[in-house]
């Protein structure tokens, strides 16, 4: 399928991008041919997003040339790139929540009537685009009312509107579940067959192998090489990415002690009939100390909502919560925190990072908030804490004073995780904690979660990646249609069993 002979539609040579003092890209070459799906691989902070931004004119390279269709170009920005057929979906969802879905998709290529916008036609066209992506949401609804995953799909819809020669997808699948991913891949293949060149970034190696024809690997801002996917074994790819051999790669399979939960003791958290109108149907849930409970479900099945009720991020309007046997009212995140319950939101940009603060400040934020403003953490302690997390999670740049907004997406996620780990909670609710995190770090985080559980922390783990949930959980609660439909033991569960439950075939 790959047209080896076709001249590249995008040809980048010797690209360097600097954010003094960091050199994010150093003399990188990159070629993208029409009719191929090209994966761009690398660890968090390797420079993938930067390369994309250099291409589309958001960052201007200090060196190097960019040719599109054989013509040397420096785009002035995404708008300019788009008019030359280069459409991009950036790493964070970059859409306008205040506009409708239809507008988000069609704005810039909107159908017109008498010189003005033709709203009806716009909605109609948007609906067809949505359908192609397998989404059946109301185009007239406002984007903000949809979950992040839906927004991500809408962003992809937007990129495919109009005629694009080059489609760039920076981690489009990070919050999609397998269903949506499959759909997306169908769309991508169809586009490829129409001759569109697709650049694809993902940290899911299986996805990369499934869909890409060729890959370029970056490490530390430098080019490692370009490979044909079929010819590159996974192990070698990982070695290229992280720069060392994988001898020590242990199967992450058994990171979790699968010993059954300590029976008989009172649950750390006991929830009875907790629910909220319009969000989650009342559910029961018990959480024991040292236990990892996974939440499985489809996109929009209500996992996030459930997590938010557990942690006081949203107020419940029914039911009761007991923490360590005592009735607790989790009306605010703060109240939950005081009881040792922590929550990392899936919405990294909106509810996670405080992007104008430094890495150090972001890490100590929750801890400091709990201590109150009058008792500042001693500087020395802060520095030690921060340094240890930077090392433990491999946050890069390893500079505590870097502004968070200048970190790569994956590294931001790590900082968030560090923020919550620093508070040493009794119960940690992780909503998509591995979103956008590279393979190495992901395994590290899984291991960390397992270790924490061994040390007695309870964890609620939500991930779009079912396999991850299966691997890590002692117990899995399955959600469907905003209802908790089943609870199964993680040890014995198989993939098929869970998938069955999720889709509604199993016992409800």
């Amino acid at each position: 399928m790959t047209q080896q002979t076709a001249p590249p539609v995008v040809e980048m040579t010797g690209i360097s991008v600097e954010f003094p003092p960091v050199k994010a890209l150093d003399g990188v070459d990159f070629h993208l041919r029409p009719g191929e799906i090209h994966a761009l691989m690398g660890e968090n902070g390797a420079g993938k997003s930067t390369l994309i931004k250099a291409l589309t004119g958001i960052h201007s390279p200090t060196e190097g040339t960019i040719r599109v269709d054989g013509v040397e170009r420096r785009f002035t920005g995404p708008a300019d790139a788009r008019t030359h057929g280069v459409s991009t979906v950036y790493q964070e969802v970059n859409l306008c929540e205040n506009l409708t879905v239809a507008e988000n998709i069609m704005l810039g290529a909107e159908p017109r009537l008498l010189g003005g916008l033709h709203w009806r036609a716009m909605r109609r066209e948007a609906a067809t685009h949505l359908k192609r992506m397998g989404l059946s949401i109301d185009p007239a609804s406002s984007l903000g009312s949809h979950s992040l995953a839906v927004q991500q799909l809408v962003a992809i819809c937007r990129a495919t509107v109009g005629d694009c020669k080059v489609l760039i997808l920076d981690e489009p699948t990070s919050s999609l579940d397998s269903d949506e991913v499959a759909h997306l891949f169908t769309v991508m293949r169809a586009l490829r067959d129409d001759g569109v060149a697709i650049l694809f970034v993902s940290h899911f190696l299986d996805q990369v192998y499934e869909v890409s024809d060729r890959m370029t690997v970056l490490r530390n801002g430098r080019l490692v090489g370009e490979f044909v996917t079929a010819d590159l074994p996974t192990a070698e790819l990982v070695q290229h990415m992280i720069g060392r051999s994988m001898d020590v790669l242990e199967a992450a399979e058994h990171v979790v002690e699968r010993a059954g939960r300590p029976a008989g003791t009172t649950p750390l958290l006991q929830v009875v009939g907790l629910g909220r109108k319009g969000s989650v149907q009342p559910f029961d849930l018990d959480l024991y100390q040292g236990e990892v409970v996974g939440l499985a479900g489809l996109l929009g099945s209500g996992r996030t909502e459930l997590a938010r009720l557990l942690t006081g991020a949203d107020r419940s309007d029914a039911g009761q919560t007991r923490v360590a046997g005592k009735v607790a009212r989790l009306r605010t995140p703060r109240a939950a925190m005081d009881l040792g319950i922590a929550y990392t939101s899936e919405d990294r940009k909106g509810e996670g990072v405080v992007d104008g603060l430094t890495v150090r400040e972001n890490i100590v934020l929750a801890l400091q908030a709990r201590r109150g403003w009058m008792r500042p953490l001693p500087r020395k302690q802060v520095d030690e804490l921060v340094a240890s997390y930077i090392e433990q999670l491999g946050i890069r740049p390893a500079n505590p004073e870097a502004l968070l907004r200048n970190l790569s997406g994956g590294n931001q996620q790590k900082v968030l995780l560090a923020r919550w780990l620093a508070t040493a909670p009794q119960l940690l609710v992780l909503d998509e904690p591995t979103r956008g995190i590279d393979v190495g770090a992901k395994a590290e985080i899984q291991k960390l979660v397992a270790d924490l559980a061994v040390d007695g922390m309870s964890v609620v783990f939500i991930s779009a990646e079912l396999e991850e949930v299966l691997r890590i959980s002692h117990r899995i609660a399955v959600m469907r249609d905003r209802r908790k439909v089943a609870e199964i033991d993680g040890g014995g569960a198989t993939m098929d069993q869970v998938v069955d439950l999720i889709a509604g075939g199993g016992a409800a």
Partner: protein
Amino acid sequence: MTNLLRHHLFWPVAALVALLVANTVASPSFLAITVRDGHLFGAPIDILRTTAPLLLVALGMTLVIATRGIDLSVGAVVAVSGAVALSYISSSPDPDSPGTVLTAVALALALCLLLGVWNGFLVSVLGIQPIIATLILMTAGRGVAMLITGGMITTVNSGPFKVLGSGFWFGLPVAAVLAFGVFAVVAFVVRRTALGMLLEATGINPSASRLSGVRSKTLTWTVYAASGLFAGLAGLLISADTMAADANNAGLFIELDAILAVVIGGTALSGGKFNLSGTLVGALVIATLERTVTVVGISPLVTPLFMALVVIAVTLLQSPRMRERLTAATRRPVATTPPEPQPAARPDSTEVKAR
């Protein structure tokens, strides 16, 4: 050179220096400070004294702005404060007793704190947009001040109160000592405790802060209360300056001056990172600018035009775009070393299993 140019206070300080130079050119003895009766005298001392109320108001404003808010009511609070204090003193049988004055001051400050709390309530509890929430008090507050004074200018003769306006401590004007002292204490508290960081977090991303357990509402409430209190103190200084409470004109447009001071000092109105030293310089720039208009002898007809040009010049020079230009012009070539060392130990594990 580059570092100096890039420093966030470079342009505000440069503006201040330029203004002082302009003044000295127009009036060579401008910078001269003389000692009389053990007190310092001279234009720079005058400027310190006139900066005092503005500095206090700008201090509160900086904190409010850090949380993404704005406080338009400070001018009205200034008026209320003066009106309350002077009305109390003038109606008391013994305006010259320190007790009377202390009571008056306490009364005024308590009321202003209350007004600040009111603003905070509207913003943080009712969730009204700050500009409108404080607009309410901006309008009504001045009415209250006028109600207290009956629309007339209340004048008092009270020795202890006059100290606030024209007394000296340590050779320096009391107003300046007070304002700079309060400023220093607040700056110290904000930066030495975690308050500053929590305020910034609230201003940058309120929902993330909430989820991190920051008591954003309480913080927001606190800064408005503080702003009210500082404005109240400023009101006392202003009324003590002329020993008169002018409900109509005291603190008129001081909110704009304060916001301008904050912005000149490099704090963004969009909230988040704030910069108290910048605010200090900003307040000095504005007070000096006002003095410059007189000393250089700019006709009142062109004064606003002159002010506009200075503000435009300072803000343009300070703008990110200009900074880039300037630093680009002076930048040394960047070292081509790799960004940072590899993290020491990196567990080489991955999940490569197919689904």
